[in-house]
């Protein structure tokens, strides 16, 4: 057996309290516990994190780049979702 048989894990690191976990990269590991430890050694050698998530790469479902345009189209024409859509006179305060 070779290390290639270890699954790939995607690593997400929370940089500090109050921030979201952000994708940092991936590690190979036999199980989740080992993936966490490897991720700690690899991605937080200089206090870059206070919390780590690992998830098996094969379990991630992602939108496909080919259908990027149709997939995100529904939000394209709804400009009324943005505050700038609304005209408010300049002399009205705090809005």
């Amino acid at each position, binding site marked *: 057996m*070779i290390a290639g048989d270890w699954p790939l894990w995607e690593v997400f690191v929370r940089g500090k309290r109050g921030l979201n976990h952000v994708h940092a*990269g991936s590690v190979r590991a036999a*199980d989740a516990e080992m993936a966490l430890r490897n991720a700690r050694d*690899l991605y937080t050698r200089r206090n870059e994190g206070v919390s780590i998530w690992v998830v098996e790469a094969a379990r991630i479902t992602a939108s496909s*780049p080919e259908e990027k345009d149709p997939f995100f189209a529904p939000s394209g024409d709804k400009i009324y979702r943005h505050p700038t859509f609304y005209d408010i006179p300049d002399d009205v305060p705090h809005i």
Partner: protein
Amino acid sequence: MSGATEQGAESFERAIERDQRIEPRDWMPDAYRGTMVRQIAQHAHSEIIGMQPEGAWITRAPSLRRKAILLAKVQDEAGHGLYLYSAAETLGADRADLTDKLISGRQKYSSIFNYPTLTFADVGVIGWLVDGAAICNQVPLCRTSYGPYARAMIRICKEESFHQRQGYELLMTMMRGTPEQREMVQDAVDRWWWPSLMMFGPPDAESANTAQSMAWKIKRHTNDELRQRFVDMTVPQAEALGVRLPDPELRWNPERGHHDFGEVDWAEFRRVVGGGGPCNAERIAVRRAAHEEGAWVREAAAAYAAKQAARRDAEQGREGEAA
């Protein structure tokens, strides 16, 4: 070309033109993917093999402080290798396969690591010159067109600055020491200077891949441009240190606004890249032995994981029945 491919090719070209990043699941030309995998893998292998010349001095570091620093530096290089293997995997390359290609000599690594580290001064000179040259190469790669590679480089560049500074500080300390210590530093500089200049690759006129890599914005500067930048940066550092760079033709050229320097021995470069350097065989043998001697650990970890997973499944099955 099918409609989907045509569309993909168009958005690839547009992204490159607009200086946007290409991301893993985007359409890309096969040649771009191939070039990227080869370059990232070669870069990863260099980080991994690069642990050996300095790693050899960990047990013989002259103080606990130097030992701790060297350990951290070498561990960083392992980390750099892993960031890069991770980036290569986003292109569909397989990490185990890349390791196999390295230890069977089918993929290359930087020729600089095929030179021996004869004294502890070499540790300092590697940090100063070899990591210094690597920084020159790597800073522009932070803006390379392939997203995961660029992000790995940003992380790596942040860490490299410590590598160069610890090396320079080590040399400053030795230069304040005995005449023998100063001689050791000069001797190490004499041996590493030219191989460091080779790290930027063959001259532009002979570099077959440069034009395509520049067009795809993988590379932002040519080999000769980066080499010149490195020489210009290093000369004042050598002066401050009090060492002589071993090149009689090295001098400031006020008209060019750059230093002129002598011709690199490209025959030696080709010989070392081709496997004829002083340590090529040893570097690969050590990497191969580490991989093979670690096989039982990888097997044991996989067996343990399988056992734990089976136990968990069985417990969940029982709970399912009870409910």
